[in-house]
């Protein structure tokens, strides 16, 4: 069951992720990203992380991506291609290829390390694993401090957004 769902989902995920990178238009990238995030929510559900899966949809695919789309629209960036202002096309391609190679190297390294890691024993999960209740309990007991601190973080971000984006300059 998990197997059946996981691999296609993972494949789609990767495809959409690549879509973000490959697409020329920011809007298409954003849409790919939303799709990828939704797929990820699926992956989370597969891992019994229901709470996170919900958050993934609400916060990421919902709030965050809406913000992205909003800004893209606001700035009217649709379809603006990636013109090579900086360097010659060849050089740019060269750099991109180099970047690709580096990324491939990292990927290779990561995969080989994960392979080496030998997590063989099957996952043992309790009945209530990943339920909102379980996670919530821990969040408000053991991790209450991070939770509170996160509020400050969001406050700071809020101030920042206001300070930076407010149109009137005094």
């Amino acid at each position: 069951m998990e197997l059946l769902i996981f691999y296609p989902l993972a494949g789609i995920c990767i495809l959409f992720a690549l879509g973000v990178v490959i697409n020329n238009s920011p809007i298409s990238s954003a849409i790919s990203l939303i799709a990828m995030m939704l797929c990820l929510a699926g992956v989370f559900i597969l891992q019994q992380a229901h709470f996170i899966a919900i958050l993934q949809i609400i916060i990421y695919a919902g709030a965050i991506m809406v913000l992205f789309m909003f800004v893209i629209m606001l700035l009217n960036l649709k379809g603006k291609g990636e013109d090579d202002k900086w360097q010659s096309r060849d050089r740019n391609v060269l750099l991109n290829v180099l970047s690709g190679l580096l990324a491939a190297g990292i990927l290779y390294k990561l995969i080989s390390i994960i392979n080496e890691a030998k997590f063989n024993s099957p996952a043992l999960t309790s009945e209530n694993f990943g339920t909102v209740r379980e996670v919530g309990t821990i969040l408000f007991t053991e991790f209450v401090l991070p939770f509170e601190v996160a509020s400050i973080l969001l406050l700071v971000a809020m101030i920042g957004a206001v300070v930076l984006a407010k149109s009137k300059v005094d």
Partner: protein
Amino acid sequence: MEPISAPPIDLISLAPVLVLAVFGMMVLITDLFIGKDKSVLVFISLTGLLMTTISSLAKYNLPVYSFNGAYVVDHLSVFFTFIFCISSALAILISVDYNKREGINVGEYYSLILFCTLGMVLLASSTDMIMIFLGIEIISISLYILAGIQRKNTKSNEAALKYFLLGAFATGFLLYGMTLIYGSTGTTKLAIIAKVIGENKILSEPLMLMGVVLLIIGFGFKVAAVPFHMWAPDVYQGAPTPVTAFMAVGPKAASLAAFYRIMSETMPELSYSWETLLCVVSVLSMFIGNLGAIMQSNIKRLLAFSSVSHVGYLLIAIIAKNSLSSSSLMFYMLAYAFMVFGTFGIVILLGRKGEENLELENYSGLAYKHPVIALTMTIFLLSLGGLPPLAGFVAKFFIFSAALKEGYVILVIIAVLNSAISFYYYLRVIVFMYMKEPIKEFHISLTPMTLLVIAISAFGTVQLGIFPDPIIALAQAN
């Protein structure tokens, strides 16, 4: 459904954070009711920092662990809180006149500094990776905003964007590293990680090591160590000068404190894996930092590279991982705070609206028009270079003794050779001040707050150089 029982919350341990949060919000709220004159906010912020310092001393019998071992008040955190408060206070003082001059007339500025300080305090006191991550993020986000707070200024914008993008990028690495460490130890609490490593119960060593490498990248970025330092010169240059000074001291100190906790305190047994890497990073930081500074003509960029090289020295303390390393780290950071604020204070002093006079040529002949300022600048620069009898020297001596105690002779030799290189560009500034004729008039507005900062810094620099004993005793009082 049984109710969730509220966990015990150690408010006294948390007092500095709370004080900062309260004052930060107070600044925000007060800002709504006052006009263009923001001096009240300065006053409130400084009071807040003072209160923070006092509240940080509330705990005796250190260390005290709270929040299931996620938060600790120990010697390191108290001392670092002290450093943060000083640096933030100096940053606020230094900003007053600058902000007026450059038209950064937003009250949020001060509350952001306070929140950033809060993040630093958290970071220095956290013993849980989640908390560390949050601390770092609070600091980073505040700094992104502060860097870009001069909205009309393209340079400031650009600095903010660069800092932000690269910072987020680095956050990704940091996070991945933490994840891997979590995966291979099964916990985010540093104490337990240390225990797991000590008992050799790591689930997967390769992943763990990979995690450590990624952590080094993340922290390396935050402290601007080579090769993750590329943002520093640009951001230092673009950000408003007080923010630059602030950025160079407090957040760096906080990150180093956390880094020290993770590396030296938590995984000394794994040092075979990270020691070499840190050595490489440290050596590279020293070299690239110093060599990079040689060619700079912009004083802020020069100081940026210089701060990169100083990170190289500071990393030595982490590599040494012995009884002296934490105290040397503390002492160095305190000394560094004075030196940096002093230098930037003078940089601010020399500027005028829209004409910041950041090029070295603008310093030509300063010594003849304003000998005292030139002399103070000389003191700061030489102290940065590590010349006795100034704070920088004692700090270096401290770090080198820590490293030599563990037998890192080559590293120390590289460090001292780098000090010699660093003298070159510090001397260059002095050359301009003393040995060139003035190219134009100086319009120095001797604003009281900035002068106060310079005076405090000069006093600190000299005091820590000539009579460092009390502070050393304090730092070593383990």
